[in-house]
């Protein structure tokens, strides 16, 4: 069997799923009905919060990345690793951490109270932006740090010996390349972020298009309205994705961020301040998740355990599907497979979910399909990341051992089993870990489909928060994080342990 054949099926499956659901949404949209004023408000809010979130994330990331690029200190490696953590952190759990620090009863309000100031208010526009910066400042920092470390150390040495302005001749050209890509990627992420708006937004002035889709479907029971909003969301992400497509996006997953380039400029104090502030902004909410979560464990209701089982099952099914699709696409290679592999980045989980809702509703009660649909959509959303991890590993395996395999007539499944899979083992483990953690933490389609029971851990957390059981929610959050990290660790470790040479 040719190893390229399954990739065609995989690509077709992905494209049919994405465009089929889009078609279902478009057919249901009754475009004549137009958009209500509230829909326009949602559109404006979505774009403005994404612009501000992306702008702030990148603007703050530049000094932090520069400080990390030129300062070496104990714990630097750990900090750079932790910058990758928000990617794996379930959004809803991070919200609990942010509430613990920036909420009405949070640390910040407590400190303000000591000096007689009123507590801060986290809900609304600035809360949504705060959460987005929390998630994306680390991502932007990693992307821009990659840019800094791509400048060869000799150039800094040469510039220093000539007394040349490093900013003008080395750093600004690099930033001109790295910053637009980082900005657009984060802009795109913020356009499609649902759980943040669900928890910290809401109301007429802080509703995103995706949140409006959810409300139209769950509370107004108006499929036509949901579908019209779905088209708006697709148009929005399509424009942003087209912009990202045209621009070189810096790498945030790349290794080698542990290097420090010796430099002879800049103030130690200022760099230390930037690193310190960024670390505090990242670590205090993470710490709060641990502290509040541990305190709340006793309040966790027993119904959490079936939810945990559901979450793990969904994550495992979703991971298997992601890895099968990603492997098939990577083995196929070429433009079609590449396109199918990156397209889900621009997809909106809520739109795909709405499309599936429209398609299945004439036949079954969508609630029954909540878990399978969640696993399917999660697999789709994790796919671009898995492909991103597997593709270079496959390339290395073929470059290093392809000719040897050819000369031994190892083709088809024998090549896969004896050469490719063993050589790609680490990447397979890491990719599966990512897919599992992403699925564990997802709060998107499940909110659209789930009935009163049948909830996953993130949805259970959201419902606890909705009934103001914050301690129980925090305890559940800790369990969710522990399970996500355990799954990630198990898969990632599986790729390393006993990996012979």
């Amino acid at each position, binding site marked *: 069997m040719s190893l390229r054949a399954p990739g065609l099926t995989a690509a077709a499956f992905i494209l049919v799923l994405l465009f089929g659901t889009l078609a279902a949404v478009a057919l249901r949209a009754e475009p004549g009905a137009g958009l209500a004023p509230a829909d326009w408000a949602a559109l404006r809010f979505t774009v403005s919060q994404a612009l501000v979130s992306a702008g702030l994330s990148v603007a703050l990331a530049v000094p932090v990345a520069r400080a990390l690029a030129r300062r070496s200190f104990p714990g630097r490696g750990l900090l750079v690793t932790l910058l990758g953590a928000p990617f794996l952190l379930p959004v809803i759990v991070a919200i609990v951490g942010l509430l613990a620090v920036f909420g009405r009863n949070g640390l910040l309000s407590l400190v303000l109270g000591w000096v007689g100031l009123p507590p801060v208010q986290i809900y609304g526009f600035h809360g949504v932006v705060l959460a987005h910066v929390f998630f994306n400042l680390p991502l932007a920092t990693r992307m821009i740090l990659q840019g800094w470390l791509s400048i060869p150390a000799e150039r800094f040495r040469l510039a220093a010996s000539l007394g040349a302005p490093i900013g003008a001749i080395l750093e600004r050209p690099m930033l001109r390349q790295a910053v637009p890509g980082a900005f657009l990627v984060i802009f795109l992420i913020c356009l499609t972020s649902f759980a943040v708006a669900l928890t910290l937004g809401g109301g007429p002035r802080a509703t995103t298009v995706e949140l409006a889709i959810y409300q139209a479907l769950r509370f107004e029971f108006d499929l036509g309205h949901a579908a019209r909003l779905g088209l708006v969301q697709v148009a929005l992400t399509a424009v942003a994705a087209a912009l990202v497509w045209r621009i070189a996006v810096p790498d945030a997953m790349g290794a080698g961020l542990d290097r420090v380039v010796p430099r002879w400029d800049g103030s130690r104090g200022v760099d230390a301040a930037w690193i310190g502030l960024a670390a505090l902004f990242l670590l205090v909410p993470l710490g709060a998740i641990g502290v509040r979560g541990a305190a709340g464990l006793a309040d966790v209701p027993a119904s959490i355990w079936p939810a945990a089982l559901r979450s793990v099952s969904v994550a495992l099914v979703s991971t298997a599907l992601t890895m099968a699709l990603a492997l098939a696409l990577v083995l196929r290679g070429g433009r079609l497979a590449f396109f199918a592999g990156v397209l889900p980045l621009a997809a909106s989980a809520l739109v795909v979910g709405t499309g599936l809702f429209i398609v299945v509703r004439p036949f079954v009660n969508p609630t029954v399909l909540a878990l399978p649909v969640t696993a399917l959509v999660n697999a789709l959303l994790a796919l671009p990341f898995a492909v991103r991890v597997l593709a270079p590993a496959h390339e290395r395996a073929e470059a*290093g*051992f392809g*000719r*040897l395999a*050819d*000369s*031994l*007539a*190892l*083709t088809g499944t*024998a090549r896969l089993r*004896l*050469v490719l899979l*063993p*050589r790609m083992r680490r990447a397979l483990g890491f990719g599966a870990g990512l897919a599992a953690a992403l699925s564990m933490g997802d709060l998107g389609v499940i909110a659209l489909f789930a009935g009163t029971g049948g909830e996953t851990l993130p949805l259970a957390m959201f419902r606890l928060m909705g009934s103001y059981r914050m301690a129980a929610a925090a305890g559940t959050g800790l369990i969710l994080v522990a399970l996500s990290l355990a799954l990630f660790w198990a898969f990632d470790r599986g790729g390393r342990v006993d*990996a*012979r*040479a």
Partner: protein
Amino acid sequence: MLALEGLRLEQGAFALKADLTVATGAIVALIGPSGAGKSTLLAAIAGFLKPVAGRVLWDGVDLGGLAPGERPVAMLFQEGNLFPHLSVAENIGLALTPRLRLSEAERARVAEVLGRVGLDGLGDRLPGDLSGGQQSRAALARVLLQDRPLVLLDEPFAALGPGLRDEMLALTAEVLGGAGRTLLLVSHEPREAARIAGETIFVAGGRAEAPAPTEALLADPPPALREYLGG
């Protein structure tokens, strides 16, 4: 007999022409400046590079339509001749079958070639646990077991020290030479290769010359070869 008929190879701006035959059972060195196309020529014979024009024939049969694994060719590359995640015995066993589980008879044959290259009892090791010289021996053992009439060696011993390289060349000639096998080996050290190769193909200036007796060629080199050898 290996015949290259009006063969023309291109890779970007690089082009190489070859029109020559190599007698069955000969051991032939390919020498020439780096970048002249010695490895490219081997790649074309092995089936990794499609010629722009001309044919590669073995005993009169055109190899053009055959995949690398289907050709009567075994090849040793500059590096990566063993899969690092498979044991030495498993690596060698791939010469017989893509199943890792070998039959009793197959295991005996693997053990036999291991003995021939002086690696008795090391079959269970991973390649990474062997020295560079031992890895080369294991790769030779696999080629021996592949038992193809034409063996291509693309400087597989380049990373070894001079002494070990000599030893490996001698071992190559000893275990692979004879039995009617034809050997083509790329070399950077013409005088080193001369010890085992009776004939030499000089590759330079976009052309692979027909094989000539090594002794005579090195004793009285034509101008281009003289320039390459440096007096």
